[in-house]
């Protein structure tokens, strides 16, 4: 019983960590007033570069660092075109998402010699905390990136609420001209958040490809970047709410898996996280409405 619950929690955490990290990137952009739907492509690029760097170096952490850097770099065209040239970030993101699919599949053939899936016993994956000597329930079977992601949510929340740069970023997102008039380097902020989102997606991709599993396969981001976008839409500019949205989604998904075993059709299991998220939103909306009604 207990074990089942731990394993459930553990499964939700594993599944959602890449989403949480990507969503955190999306949230930073949202705070600064940039609507970032490029997360899906960046997540895929992060997964790919993580495997490439791990493969080349034989060290998973170099893979992680490489993915973070390479994906921040991959986000540069988005930041230049949407911030400097004021192109529509949604259109650019549609382009870079497509580009990531093609580029990873193409480079995969160049680097690993074949398409599809790349894995090898020699490919270094991230160690679990248990392997590092920290055998605690739930977190034990996770890579260190998982607790790090949770810490990061808290850190970003604190940073936004309490620090000088966090305050300025929030200001820039709410009234760009006013922030600029106060002498805040708003353009740098906007570039900064788009690149930071890239870095976070790199980390997310690294966790997906070296933490969740140890391999790269074409298109393995499999919509997680879009789930992250939805989480940002739901959670707005509040990191804990975004985390909550991710966990709700992940829990619904995990429940769906378990119910599939009891005969629930696959299509229903696929739909479950979306339906439950929507229901939660609607219930919250109805409750808020009732509260204002009762007041009068």
């Amino acid at each position: 019983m207990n074990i089942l619950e731990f394993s459930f929690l553990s499964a939700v955490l594993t599944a959602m960590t890449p989403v949480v990290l990507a969503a955190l990137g999306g949230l930073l952009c949202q705070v600064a007033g940039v609507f970032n739907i490029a997360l899906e492509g960046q997540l895929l690029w992060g997964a790919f570069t993580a495997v490439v760097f791990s493969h080349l170096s034989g060290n998973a952490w170099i893979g992680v660092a490489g993915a973070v850097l390479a994906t921040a770099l991959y986000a540069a065209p988005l930041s230049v075109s949407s911030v400097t040239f004021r192109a529509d970030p949604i259109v650019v993101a549609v382009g870079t998402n497509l580009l990531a699919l093609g580029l990873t599949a193409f480079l995969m053939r160049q680097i690993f010699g074949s398409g599809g899936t790349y894995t090898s016993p020699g490919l270094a994956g991230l160690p679990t905390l248990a392997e590092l000597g920290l055998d605690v329930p739930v977190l034990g079977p996770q890579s260190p990136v998982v607790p790090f992601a949770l810490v990061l949510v808290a850190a970003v929340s604190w940073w936004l609420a309490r620090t000088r740069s966090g305050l300025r970023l929030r200001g820039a997102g709410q009234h760009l001209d006013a922030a600029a008039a106060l002498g805040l380097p708003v353009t740098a902020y906007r570039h900064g958040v788009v690149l930071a989102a890239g870095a976070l997606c790199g980390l997310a991709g690294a966790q997906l490809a070296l933490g969740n599993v140890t391999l790269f396969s074409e298109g393995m981001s499999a919509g997680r970047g879009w789930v992250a976008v939805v989480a940002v839409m739901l959670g707005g500019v509040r990191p804990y709410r975004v985390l909550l949205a991710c966990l709700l989604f992940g829990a619904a998904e995990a429940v769906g898996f378990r119910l599939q075993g009891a005969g629930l059709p696959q299509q229903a299991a696929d739909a479950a996280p979306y339906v439950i998220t929507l229901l939660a939103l609607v219930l919250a909306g109805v409750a808020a409405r009732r509260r204002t009604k009762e007041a009068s």
Partner: protein
Amino acid sequence: GGGTGGPNASAAPDGKSIILITPNPVGTNSFLQLGVKGAEAAAKEIGASFKLYESKDPTSIAQNVDAAVRAKPTVIVGISFSFDDVFTTVPKQHPQQQFLQVDSCAKEQAPNLACVSFKEHEAAYLAGVEAGLLTKSGKIGVVAALDTPFIHRWIEPFFAGAASVKPDVAGTPLYVGGNNPFSDPARAKSQAQTLTDRGADITLAAASAGNQGVFEAVAATGAKAFGVDVNQCGQSAGNVVDNVLKHVDVAELAAIKEIVSGKTGGVKVYGLAEGGVGVGALSADVASSGCTVAASPDVITKVKQVRDDILAGKVTVADPLQS
């Protein structure tokens, strides 16, 4: 810089050529990868050029078939059920053109359309026998990419095979689904973990690129997995019992050679009898296959016996596609 369109870059005017059309981008789909492998091998063997047209939906399938017909190759190969519709009409309109459909056959078959199909269920049944003999918990599972009718040719026979040797065995199928069912190893791993959490100690992995995720999941808990289509034992040493083999490439190569040699049309079904499907345990080189079944000679013996029973008609494996 590559292909400059020189005289030998593609098919010479009267040279032989093969065009393979897939219903989806090949990408991570292990079955389509095998199809490409078979066609490439055939092209090499008969000295033909080879081209791959990847489609994404029924319309692009039709467009690719059109374009292939215009190119007038020796054979146009279409792979899977998705070609049933186009191959019902197009071959009739182009009687001079030879067609080959792999894995299914159009309802109204023209004389210039050859078909090869497989009895995957026979091999899956044998794998199930192995699983039934090897499971300790009496719980086994399948992780499949998507709940299509076709995938049930692996699932039910696998469970039936297991039940044939261990009647109270409980089988649970899970489907990866989601946004990219054929290439979501993380989700497949999560599914496999769900199965191992519930006590399943043997899982058949039929999730294309997701299979590696399944292998990782069983490896972490000491459970075991089965692979599909090709020998996947080497991908996760010590964790894969055996594979449900489907020699698409071999069958395709043979079919193309027959067409080239003038034997056109017809349907060829590859089952255990024809050697088109099977499990690793049946092969002579099982010891070097890396599959853990090699360490259980009694299992191998039993599997061979069941195979013989099937061939002899003493055991019939129900085809889930035949309702």
